[in-house]
């Protein structure tokens, strides 16, 4: 803390900057957390990075196996089957989960149901479900109905439900309430008022959230192969360590598919608005 004296004799104390406290806390936390990060410098081999990038995006070329570019593209074409499984899982999960989320989101929004005791349990449910990772949900699905599309749909449904409920209730809460009140004053009940005053305002958001969640689900599927779940993630986990060219091909396919999804989404949103 430094003090200044200006010409009229007044003393000014420069306020202590709180940012130093924050920085100190962050540094202490990093030092504590660093104890949990174990590593072995003997295994460091940074030169491998450029090698692996080459392996990812060119056909495999070793003494034992030699592949050509046509093999590379053929593998991309073969990926349509796991990709289709992933699409089925995400599509079913997104639609069912989002539809289930709508009533919960309505009950959780404070401007439709003004009673705090009605909102609270629904919000609690939403928050709890949102914390469970997709991978655990799909594992539970597999344990219940066995491997296959159905288990994926179960997992993705719960996951999509959590995200949609959270995002949709935020949209409902920020909607303009004056048409709702106007309709209520003309004698409409709450359901009628909601469907004529709020639904037109939030419908477009709902549709764009549907696409967003679908895209999120496709993205999230990349990691699921490691715990033995069918879909595009399988192509990554099975070929990991040995066939890096196939992993690279999967990444390209996934990227192009997500890009197409984003383009369709922005196109449809432009049409609806």
């Amino acid at each position, binding site marked *: 803390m430094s003090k200044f004296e200006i010409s009229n004799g007044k003393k000014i104390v420069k306020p202590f900057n709180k940012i130093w406290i924050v920085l100190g806390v962050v540094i202490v936390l990093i030092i504590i957390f660093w104890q949990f990060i174990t*590593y072995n410098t003997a295994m460091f081999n940074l030169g491998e990075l450029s090698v692996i990038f080459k392996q990812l995006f060119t056909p495999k070329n070793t003494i034992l196996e030699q592949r050509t570019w046509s093999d590379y593209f053929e593998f991309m074409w073969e990926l349509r089957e796991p990709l289709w499984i992933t699409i089925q899982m995400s599509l079913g999960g997104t639609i069912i989960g989002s539809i289930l989320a709508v009533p919960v989101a309505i009950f959780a929004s404070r401007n439709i149901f003004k009673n705090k005791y009605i909102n609270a349990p629904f919000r609690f449910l939403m928050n709890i479900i949102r914390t469970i990772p997709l991978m655990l949900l799909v594992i539970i699905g*597999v344990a219940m109905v066995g491997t296959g599309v159905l288990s994926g749909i179960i997992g993705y449904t719960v996951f999509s439900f959590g995200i949609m409920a959270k995002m949709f209730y935020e949209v409902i809460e920020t909607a303009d309430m004056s048409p709702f009140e106007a309709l209520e004053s003309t004698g409409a009940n709450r359901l009628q008022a909601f469907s004529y005053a709020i639904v037109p305002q939030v419908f477009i958001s709902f549709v764009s959230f549907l696409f967003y969640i679908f895209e999120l689900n496709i993205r999230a599927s990349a990691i699921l192969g490691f715990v033995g779940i069918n879909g595009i993630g399988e192509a990554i986990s099975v070929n990991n360590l040995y066939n890096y060219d196939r992993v690279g091909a999967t990444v390209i396919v996934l990227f192009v598919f997500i890009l197409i999804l984003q383009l369709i989404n922005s196109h449809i949103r432009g049409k609806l608005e």
Partner: protein
Amino acid sequence: MRNAEKVLSRKPKRWLINLFFGIALILALFISFQGSTINLIRLASFRYALRAMFNGFREINVEFLLGFGTYRFEEGITYMAFQTLAIAFIGTFIGAILALPISFLASERIVGKKAAKIGITVITIIRVFPEVILALIILKAIGMNPLTCVIAIGIHSIGMLGRMFSESIDNMDYSPIEALDAVGANTWQKIRFGILPQVIPELASTTLYRFDINIRSASVLGVIGTLAGGFGALLLLAGSDPNNQWDTIAALLVVIVIMVLIVDSVSAYLRKKLV
């Protein structure tokens, strides 16, 4: 009356859109369930699966959960939770540090429209790779350990953080910088007194939000290998034979839900204080 009828007939055909939308949804559902057979034996045992699940919650191995008794603390799930927190925290920190210069490069108002394209391209390329792929690449260079997850999460965070940072820098009020120019401040002083005080709360809030996301991805990123840290080993165990691992699944569920809930509420509280 006639006029009213005319107006009514000019009303947009809302039902047509709704019908189209509904048919599309039903069709999509139909497609997604194609090929998924309902196994009657499975369906009959569904009851038992549910019961096994709730039994799993009762049979949680508390010693394993907290890491005492027959287990060392380093073997317990609580240790894994702290490790996950560590991976997410340090990863987010690395991501934020790296995103800062890139975001200045990507902001149109600081480096100009043409130069901003470079930064934007870097951000877009980083966003292409899913976290798993990044982790698999880094694994080659660093080996199978938690540090791999830290770096993967750090690099993946640059994508979103860089874009949001550059947006907040673009939306900044530039009059303080002009004022500093007028009194003869040098570049560092302009950054220190003109830019940083404005953007730091927003950047911190964005970083905290990213921490929320990273804690979720850190808890599953460990599956790239048993030694990769976090809950990886347990998730692999649960995934290998989900039918008989209900107690593991239940323990994971409890720990992850509590951990993420705490992180969520702390970061929400801090973000509310910041803005």
